[in-house]
């Protein structure tokens, strides 16, 4: 199938919206992406036709949602090429996935004096859960730095690793810098010492092909809403050996084998980690998103986005005084910058009034801001429904904003 941008844009009715009397141009896809009609219809279908609690009833609707819900596990397994469907756990998002691993892994494997390694460019969601765990277990956190181009300094990793290192958690794509990290190198170094690695794929799954077996990561996490699916759904892939050895994160229905007041035994994976009624509607919506992306073809989407991002960088570079953050040889569709000393908040406000949505601020990655000693950046993040025309309009508007604020 040809990559037909006009047809694709029709699948996203929200792209037609006008705000402040002008067509809204949305460049905040890294925060959350728009949903195609196919996803909306899948969600509507659940509420209008199959509202049954999966795994719980003998009745028709319960069975129907069970089938559709479990089918998404297969879709996710294929999507990231996981070895088995049982290693896919549904959560409510990347943040919950990381918290689950941080809590359950640390209960089994982290003790006083141990160490956890994260990187300097992590989102707060991949820092704070580890800090909480380290506080609780009297363990410490070590940090892999990045250089001024936004390149993760993997060469520093061997000296950070010690006998006490229990887990390493690194992002595949930085949500601020857009740098695509060489996580295979991190994993290879870690595995030499038998240390498991968690990869945060929140900013990666929508932009680069994922193969968790080739990558050989021990855990991989991502969110549905950044992948054109509903909010409130995320995934955790974990190698069976780890998931089996980790205690449950939340207790409740579904995750048990047998309950009595003298003791409870737990279900097997993935159910051990899916306590309570699952977010089946959102999960089924995510399945529709994956089907939709497959129907266009991930290769085509990635190729189009990469060209669009290159074009955007080239056009933005024509603005006097622009400074990019994240200039590695391997960049994603996320572009962070400031212009002269104009505050990102002022720039974002003016752009908003001109009907452009960009993200401004520290992007929940304050250590990155501290690295560059800046209060924040303006971030443009593109999706495959964005166009060169939108970028041209944006750059023209940005030039006006810069003139007004200089």
């Amino acid at each position: 199938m040809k990559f037909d941008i006009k047809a694709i844009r029709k699948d996203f009715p929200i792209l037609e919206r006008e705000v402040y009397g002008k067509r809204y141009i949305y460049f905040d896809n890294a925060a959350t992406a728009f949903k195609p009609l196919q996803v909306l219809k899948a969600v509507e279908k659940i509420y209008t036709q199959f509202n049954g609690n999966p795994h719980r009833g003998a009745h028709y609707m319960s069975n129907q949602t069970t089938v559709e819900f479990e089918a998404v596990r297969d879709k996710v397994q294929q999507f990231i090429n996981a070895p088995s469907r049982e290693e896919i756990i549904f959560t409510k998002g990347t943040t919950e996935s990381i918290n689950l691993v941080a809590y359950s892994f640390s209960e089994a494997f982290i003790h006083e004096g141990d160490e956890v390694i994260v990187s300097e460019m992590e989102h707060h969601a991949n820092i704070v859960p580890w800090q909480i765990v380290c506080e609780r277990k009297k363990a410490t956190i070590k940090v892999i730095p990045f250089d001024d181009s936004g390149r993760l300094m993997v060469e520093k990793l061997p000296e950070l690793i010690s006998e006490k290192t229990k887990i390493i958690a690194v992002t595949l794509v930085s949500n601020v810098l857009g740098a695509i990290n060489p996580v295979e190198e991190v994993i290879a170094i870690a595995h030499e010492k038998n240390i498991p690695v968690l990869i945060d794929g929140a900013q990666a799954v929508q932009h680069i092909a994922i193969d968790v077996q080739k990558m050989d990561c021990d855990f991989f996490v991502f969110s549905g809403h950044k992948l054109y699916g509903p909010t409130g759904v995320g995934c955790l892939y974990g190698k069976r050996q780890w998931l089996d050895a980790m205690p449950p994160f939340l207790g409740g229905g579904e995750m048990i084998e047998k309950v009595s007041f003298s003791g409870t035994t737990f279900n097997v994976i993935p159910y051990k980690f899916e306590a309570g009624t699952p977010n089946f509607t959102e999960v089924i919506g995510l399945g529709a998103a994956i089907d939709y992306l497959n129907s266009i073809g991930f290769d085509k989407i990635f190729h189009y986005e990469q060209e669009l991002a290159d074009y955007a960088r080239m056009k933005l570079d024509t603005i006097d005084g622009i400074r990019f953050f994240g200039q590695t040889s391997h960049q994603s569709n996320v572009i962070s910058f400031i212009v002269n000393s104009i505050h990102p908040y002022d720039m974002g406000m003016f752009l908003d009034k001109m009907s452009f949505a960009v993200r401004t601020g520290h992007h929940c990655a304050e250590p990155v801001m501290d690295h560059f000693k800046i209060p924040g950046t303006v971030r443009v993040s593109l999706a495959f429904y964005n166009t060169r025309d939108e970028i041209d309009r944006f750059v023209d508007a940005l030039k006006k904003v810069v003139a007004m604020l200089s």
Partner: protein
Amino acid sequence: MSIEEIQQEIIAEFSVFDDWMDKYSYLIELGNGIEALDEKYKVDQNLIRGCQSQVWLNAECRDGVVYYQGESDALIVKGLVALLLRVVNEQPAAEIINADFHFIDSIGLKEHLSPTRSNGLLAMVKQIKLYAVAFNKMNS
């Protein structure tokens, strides 16, 4: 002038703008017009941390009225700080405690005070009032 009178004065000033660009240009002008906060007051104790921008606020009470000084790193926020301080400066603490800063809504800038903007302004309004409460207690 009372707090209410100053608010009415600001509303009248802003009523001439029918274009957002003119309004914001004026706001930035006001921000640039405020006296730079002395470096000695730019300490963590006076810092109101927002997610997007930061605000510094210092206050003193002399002869029964409160003197505030503030600054922000973002121009738009600085303009709003200028407006807020114009309303509360040199007013009795008791008056400030009960003030309702309705002018912000009237001049169409309420969005900057929403918790989602997290630019430090909402926290600043709270801090303005907390200072007033403290001074009021000291004076009574």
